[in-house]
C-alpha cells in the first residue's frame, strides 16, 4: 500500500484557524508543495501580511516574517537584498496587496525584485469582517458597501495581474483559481513556475489566486466556489499575463 497523497513537508502540522471551506488552506498547500518540489525548504523565507493569513507563519515549516499591512513586498525586498541566494515569497490578500500596499507591489514589480508573490484575491476584507476590497465586484454587498459597490461612488475592481503586466520587471504573472480539481492542478503549476522564475533570477513573479470567503460572502463553502466561477471569473479572467519564457503573454 502506497501513500499517494500526504501533507507536504513544508506545511506545518498545526491546525489552521481559517473558516470552514476557506480556500486560503488550499493555497497554503500549493505553496508548500512548490517549495518542497523545488527542494527549497531550508532556504526559503516567507512574509505574511495583515489579513486572515497573518498567522501563516504558524502553518509553514519555514522561516517567516510578519509584515505591516500592505508592506510585505518592501519587507521581502529588504530580506532578498541581504540574502540574494535565498528564496523569498510574500503571501498577501487583496486588501493588503491591492489597496494599502498598491505602491509597494507596483514598485516591487517595476524593480524586477526577485521575489515571488502569492496574491489571494477573495474580493473582500476577510479578517476585519467583510469590508469592500479594491477587487470587490460592482454591485457586491459588503459591510462598507451596504447598497452594493456602486461604480459612481467607489469605482471599479482593480485587475492586479493585468496592471502589473505592464511592468518590464515582471518575469511571470498568472491568475489562477482553486475551485475545482482541474483549476487546483493548474494553480499548482503556476506556483511552481513563479518560484522557478525567482530561482533562475528572471525577476518578479506573482500568482493571483481567486479564492473564497464563505464567511463574509454569506455563502456555504460550495456556493462560494460557484460564485468564484460565475461572478469573479468574468471580471478576473484566468491566464498567464507575463512569462519570461514566451515574452509578454
Amino acid at each position: 500500500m502506497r501513500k499517494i497523497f500526504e501533507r507536504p513537508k513544508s506545511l506545518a502540522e498545526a491546525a489552521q484557524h481559517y473558516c470552514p471551506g476557506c480556500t486560503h488552506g488550499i493555497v497554503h498547500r500549493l505553496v508548500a508543495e512548490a517549495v518542497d518540489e523545488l527542494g527549497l525548504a531550508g532556504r526559503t523565507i516567507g512574509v505574511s501580511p495583515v489579513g486572515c493569513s497573518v498567522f501563516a507563519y504558524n502553518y509553514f515549516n519555514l522561516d517567516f516574517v510578519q509584515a505591516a499591512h500592505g508592506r510585505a513586498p518592501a519587507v521581502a525586498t529588504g530580506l532578498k537584498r541581504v540574502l540574494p541566494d535565498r528564496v523569498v515569497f510574500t503571501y498577501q490578500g487583496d486588501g493588503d496587496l491591492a489597496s494599502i500596499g498598491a505602491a509597494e507591489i507596483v514598485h516591487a514589480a517595476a524593480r524586477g525584485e526577485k521575489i515571488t508573490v502569492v496574491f489571494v484575491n477573495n474580493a473582500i476584507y476577510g479578517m476585519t469582517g467583510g469590508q469592500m476590497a479594491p477587487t470587490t465586484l460592482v454591485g457586491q454587498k459588503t459591510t462598507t458597501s451596504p447598497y452594493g459597490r456602486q461604480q459612481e461612488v467607489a469605482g471599479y475592481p482593480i485587475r492586479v495581474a493585468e496592471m502589473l503586466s505592464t511592468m518590464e520587471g515582471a518575469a511571470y504573472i498568472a491568475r489562477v483559481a482553486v475551485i475545482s480539481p482541474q483549476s487546483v492542478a493548474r494553480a499548482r503549476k503556476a506556483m511552481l513556475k513563479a518560484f522557478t522564475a525567482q530561482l533562475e533570477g528572471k525577476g518578479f513573479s506573482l500568482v493571483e489566486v481567486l479564492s473564497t470567503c464563505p464567511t463574509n460572502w454569506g455563502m456555504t463553502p460550495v456556493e462560494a466556489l460557484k460564485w468564484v466561477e460565475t461572478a469573479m471569473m468574468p471580471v478576473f479572467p484566468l491566464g498567464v499575463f507575463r512569462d519570461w519564457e514566451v515574452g509578454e503573454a
Partner: protein
Amino acid sequence: MGEKMLMKGNEAIGEAAIKAGCRFFFGYPITPQNELPEYMSRRLPEVGGVFLQAESEVAAINMVYGASCAGGRVMTSSSSPGISLKQEGISYLAGSELPAVIVNIVRGGPGLGGIQPAQSDYFQATRGGGHGDYRTLVYAPSTIQEMVDLVMMAFDKADAYRNPVLVLGDGILGQMMEPVEFPDEPPPEPLAKPWATTGAEGRPPNIISSIILDPELLDKHNWHLMEKYEQIRKKETRWEIYDPYEAEIFLVAYGTMARVARAAIEAAHSRGIDCGLVRPITLWPFPERAFDELADRARAYLSVEMSTGQMVDDVKIAAAGRAPVYFYGRAGGVVPSPAEIVKKIELIFEEIKGGSKRA
C-alpha cells in the same frame, strides 16, 4: 584614528555607517539630507553593499524591517515629513525587537514647512511618534565628529538591545563641514543574530512578528520591552555639563543649539552673568540624573530650542519643581542667536534675584 578630513555632516554619517559595518541602506530623497543617500549610492556598491532608493519613506522603513530580519546592518534616513511617514514602521521595529539605525535631519514644520534646520521633532523622537508603548534610543550629536562617533555607536547599541536607534540632527549638522576622523580599526565582528530569518536549514524555523492577540501575553511582551528600556536608561544615558563659571543658571540645549548656547554663555559671562549648560547627548533616555547632580546649585533652567518648546517638558520633569524652568526658542529654521539668548538670560537673572523658586 585616521587622517583628518573635512566632510559634510550628511556624508560623514554615511561614511561612519560604512565604517560601522552597515551594508544596506534604503531611503527616499528629501532636503536637507540628500547627500546621505547620494553618498551611500556611490559608496555602498564599492564595499559590496546595497543602496536602494525606495518608492517612499513607508517602503524604505519596511525594507529596513526586512533587511534587519535577515540579519543585515541596515540604515535609513529622512527629514521631518518623511520621518512622520515612518512612524508605523518604527513601531513595528520596536515591537518585533529589530535593530536598525534611523537618521532624522530635522527641518522646520509643521506640514511641508521649510527646509532650514529645526529641532521641532523632539517630541516625535523621544515619545514615539508611532503607536504603542515603545522607546528608541535617541542620539543628538552637536559636532560632525560626535555625529560620526554616535552613528557608529548607534549600530552597536541597536544590535545589542535589538531596538531601533534614532540619530537626530538638523539641517545645519547635515549640511555643515567640519574636520572629522574615522577609526582605523575594522569594525568589530558583528553580534551573532541567531534569531534572524535566513532560511531554516538545520534548525527550527525562526519567526519574526509583532502580533500578539492574547492581552495577557501582549501585556507581558510590553513589560519585557519596558525592562529593556529600563536597562537602556541605566546604561546608555549620556550628557555633558559645561560649567566653567560655577553657575546658578543652567541652559539646557542639544545639537546645533548647544553650540550656540555655549557662545551665549560666553557672551553672558562678558556681561557679568554666569551660566552653565546641560547638554543631553541622549534625548531618550533624557539625562534626569544631570539635574539631580545640579539640584543643590541650579536656581533656574533655561531650555533653548530651535522649536516653540518641546524638550522643555523633559526639563520640567527632571527639575521636578526644584528650580523654575524657562524657555526660549525660535522655529521654522531660525537659529536663535547668542544675543537673543543673552537677553533672555538677563530677564531670568532679574527674576530669580527676586528669589521666587517656581516659574
